[in-house]
């Protein structure tokens, strides 16, 4: 007999489980909370009756710091918004300021930014799926994914000068140029990466236990995903075909061909945890395609535009969003038109809205599935708290 989460939920409503509720603290320091996030779980046996997520342990006042710093000096802090995908955060912020101040960016700089973004997206998804497997008890695939991420860090080191927290982007350009040697290395790496993804799929993606742990677990239907403002791979995992790289047309994504991957319910239902895993795997393949196209299109040229040393943006406000690996990354910037610092910067992140689904979705789940569902959302704690 199959008992679904819906059945259990209806039994919770009428208090027909044993009624012996205990309160369990999961986190803040729990290996599967991907940073510092705490859940207060009310359990009846193994079943979650009520779940309250508690965040804020990694709140670093980044928005307040932004109000004290000149526009260009805030760039290194954007690395730390989502430290798994720093370049995407850099570009998100830079584009917001550049759009507001009508600053030009040289063509090569934009291509280099896209190169950095797609490489980072792959690295970030590798960590995402790797952490998902290790949370379910499969250690080996995690190590394989991290090994690949190290190779990408080697490339990032050539491209940006640092392996993590790259601080690569400058307002109006990027910090350093690369020579053709790098492009050759990258192209060689991509040949290897395709083989790796195939291997990874055989290693874990098609593993029976792995599939059983994820299929049909934590199903988020399309309308629920929209209701909870899920974004990025989590939204697409629910079958909603939205990718800001397509809809918002920033950088040169309109010149490149790629598919928007959506969840298809490969083994279970559309929007289950396996779909979110699958979307990330497929998205890495798309990023690989994008990187090859970028390599064929990138030309010699300037990498930094002249921007005023003392940059003052015109009075007004703008909400600018980009597609980061964890979904919509929006920067809402307000300028008073006379000072060197922004009046207000609000950062909207994909992990923040992914967290809002938890107290509803965890109800009626087994504790082990809580971890599977949460890991499949690929939440990164610093991005929730900022």
């Amino acid at each position, binding site marked *: 007999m199959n008992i679904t989460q819906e059945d259990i939920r209806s039994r919770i409503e009428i208090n027909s489980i044993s009624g012996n509720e205990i309160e369990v603290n999961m986190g803040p320091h729990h290996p599967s909370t991907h940073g510092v996030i705490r859940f207060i779980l009310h359990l009846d046996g193994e079943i979650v009756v009520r779940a309250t997520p508690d*965040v*804020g342990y990694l709140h670093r006042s980044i928005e307040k710091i932004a109000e004290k710093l000149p526009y260009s000096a805030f760039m290194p802090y954007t690395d730390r918004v989502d430290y798994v995908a720093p370049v995407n955060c850099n570009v998100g912020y830079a584009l917001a300021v550049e759009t507001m101040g009508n600053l030009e960016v040289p063509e090569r700089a934009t291509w280099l930014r896209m190169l950095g973004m797609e490489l980072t997206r792959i690295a970030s998804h590798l960590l995402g799926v790797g952490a998902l497997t290790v949370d379910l008890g499969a250690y080996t695939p995690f190590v394989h994914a991290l090994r690949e991420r190290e190779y990408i860090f080697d490339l990032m080191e050539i491209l940006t000068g640092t392996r993590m927290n790259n601080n690569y982007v400058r307002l109006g350009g990027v910090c350093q140029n690369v020579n053709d040697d790098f492009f050759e290395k990258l192209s060689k790496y991509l040949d290897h990466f395709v083989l790796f993804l195939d291997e990874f799929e055989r290693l874990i993606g098609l593993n029976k236990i792995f599939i059983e742990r994820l299929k049909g677990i934590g199903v988020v239907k399309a309308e629920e995903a929209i209701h*909870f*403002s899920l974004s990025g791979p989590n939204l697409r995992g629910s079958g909603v075909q939205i990718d800001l790289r397509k*809809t918002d047309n920033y950088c040169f994504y309109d010149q490149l061909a790629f598919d928007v991957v959506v969840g298809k319910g490969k083994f279970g239902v559309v929007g289950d945890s396996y779909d979110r895993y699958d979307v990330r795997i497929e998205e890495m393949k798309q990023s690989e395609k994008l990187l090859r196209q970028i390599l064929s299109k990138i030309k010699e040229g300037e990498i930094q535009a002249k921007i005023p040393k003392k940059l003052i943006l015109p009075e007004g406000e703008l*909400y600018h969003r980009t597609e980061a690996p964890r979904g919509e990354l*929006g920067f*809402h910037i307000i300028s008073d038109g006379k000072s060197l610092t922004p009046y207000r910067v609000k950062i909207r992140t994909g992990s923040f809205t992914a*967290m809002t689904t938890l107290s509803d979705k965890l109800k009626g789940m087994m504790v082990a599935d809580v971890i599977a569902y949460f890991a499949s959302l690929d939440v990164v704690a610093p991005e929730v708290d900022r």
Partner: protein
Amino acid sequence: MKYSIDICEKLVQLVSPVSAEIIQRESKMPIVKISAQEVRKVIQIAVSNPGLKFNFLNNISGTHLTEISEEGDIKSRGFALLYVLSRSDDFSSVVIGVDLPDLNPSVDSIDDIFGSANWFEREIYDLLGVVFNNSCDLRRIMLPDDWVGHPLRKDFQEKSSYNGIPTTREDELAAVRVDNL
């Protein structure tokens, strides 16, 4: 980003051309400015009107508005909230702005319309002290429950200690700095 002035005008027509107006008309992001009492009504129209269908909440952000006098004193002018809504098919967006008074700023909650709104509102309540009426769960989200004050307000003064823990520390390097030797 796709912000269209036509959609803003349509929304203004549907709401009320008297009380709603479009600001930042010439900029990249026109904003439909409405009065604080109308927030729920306007957002419900934006969500459910067949010609609009903005059923995705991207963001809610709050700002403390201030004026700095010639003497350098900070004078509060109230608060501003900004709602960004999108369509779930083509992701074109509309932006709705609200101004709130300085004293007891409050606005109706929209957490029954959008599941994600509650956390956005909790963050604004926590960091700016704007109260959302009829909210299902209005608690602090980032800061501890016993925190006093709202740090994103421009006139926020940090206390020297929190629960006996000093928030500043002595300058340990002061003794070895060249200008102090």
